[in-house]
């Protein structure tokens, strides 16, 4: 009995590797260095839903049916987010980082892995209230074009507004949150004014290169899905994209401390995982 389970498990692990390889070769999306536990959970769940007998059967499906590939893409991209998620992060950005960004004539911010856009609009609101928005260009990118379309629309279920509003207030918001959206039926749509300096674009952190030099990168709860090697690779991309003195903002449970990128940064606010790129590398030994 035990041997059979072991054998099946070993096979499943091989099948998963082959499945990810197939997706990479066919579609160019590279999930081979994602955390395996996460990928396995999502695939076994999809296997159950699609009534497939094995991952190998799903591999056939994913190669021949693009619609099925889109489902897998959705399974692999985590789109759980909210406006002003972790209010204390936004409060710290407002109080500690914005005053410094204000000293630049023009700033560029990159939201990497922006998902459905809630955190991008949160930043836009914050910048507007601080009088900085008109001098800002925000790049909001994600690898999932379906979710990017949602982000561009800026339409969210009205049921979420209570939570969003509470977060906004805790983050140090200075206005009435309802000024920023219009309610229509079961949805709210955020003001076009918030969108005017945001460029939504398809960008894959794993396979695409740097595309701009920016003053701040916000990439929260994305790196947790990558293995160490991929984390290092993506952090390298971020370091290459940040201007000296630029800010890197990660999720509350993410850190650069144990990564190869660590030497390039000072920790500014440890709890909120806000790091600042050094102006230049200090000589070793200091």
């Amino acid at each position, binding site marked *: *009995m*035990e041997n059979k*389970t*072991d054998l099946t*498990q070993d096979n499943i*692990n091989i099948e998963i590797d082959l499945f990810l390889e197939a997706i990479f070769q066919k579609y160019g999306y590279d999930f081979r260095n994602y*955390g*395996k*536990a*996460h990928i*396995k*959970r999502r695939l076994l769940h999809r296997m159950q839903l699609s009534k497939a007998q094995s991952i190998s059967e799903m591999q056939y499906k994913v190669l021949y049916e693009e619609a099925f590939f889109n489902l897998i893409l959705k399974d692999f991209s*985590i789109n*759980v987010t909210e406006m002003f998620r972790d209010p204390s992060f936004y409060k710290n950005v407002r109080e500690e980082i914005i005053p410094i960004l204000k000293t630049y004539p023009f700033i560029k911010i990159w939201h990497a892995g922006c998902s459905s856009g809630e955190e991008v609009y949160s930043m836009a609101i914050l910048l507007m209230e601080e009088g900085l928005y008109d001098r800002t260009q925000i790049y909001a990118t994600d690898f999932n074009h379906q979710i990017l379309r949602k982000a561009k629309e800026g339409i969210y279920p009205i049921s979420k507004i209570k939570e969003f509003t509470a977060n906004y207030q805790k983050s140090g918001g200075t206005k009435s949150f309802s000024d920023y959206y219009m309610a229509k039926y079961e949805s709210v749509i955020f003001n076009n004014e918030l969108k005017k300096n945001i460029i939504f674009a398809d960008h894959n952190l794993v396979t695409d290169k740097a595309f701009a030099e920016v003053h701040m990168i916000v990439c929260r*709860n994305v*790196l*947790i*899905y990558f*293995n*160490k090697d991929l*984390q290092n690779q993506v952090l390298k991309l971020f370091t290459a994209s940040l201007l000296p003195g630029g800010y890197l903002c990660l999720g509350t*449970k*993410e*850190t650069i401390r*144990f990564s190869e990128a660590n030497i390039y940064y000072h920790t500014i606010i440890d709890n909120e995982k806000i790091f600042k790129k050094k102006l230049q590398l200090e000589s070793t030994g200091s």
Partner: protein
Amino acid sequence: MSMQYKAIVIGSSAGGLNALRTLLTMLDADFKIPIIIVQHTSPSSDNYITTYLNDLCKLKVKEADEKEKIMSGYIYFAPPNFHLLVEEKFFLSLSIEERVNFARPSIDVLFETAAFTYKEKLIGIVLTGANHDGAMGLRKIKEFGGLTIVQDPKTAEVNSMPLSAIKATKVDHILSLEDIGELLISINRNFL
């Protein structure tokens, strides 16, 4: 047959803090098997539980960091609002994916991924709670040949989680907290 267990996973919900205190304070500093715990909490709660238990326990109690290696002598807790997963090669990872059984962290997510990694060398324990999270996960542990333990529903502050687990699987032991503690201590003794 002496079994070398490599990890213990515990799931608890309503009433969990008291139950965990009773159980974990029974363990001495020589307890070798790492313990990984999901206790349901509110998404916005702070690290109160780990600070509190770390003061009381002889083992080191901490919130799991992402990609942290699982070590002997430690008790790891899932951070509030994150799922906790066990990866191949015995390290921990976090996820903010959708709630499972209305919970994040979810006990099932921890148990299932731990079962994949530790196979028969895992002990799964379901304690007090008001829902059915952990039942499917415990079944997975059993399927892989691990040891399954459930808090005796009669002794649980809230009995629905133990009852659901017992219903889903033919569990190995149904015990009071004190007896679970004694069992773990004796397993650890064989481990030495």
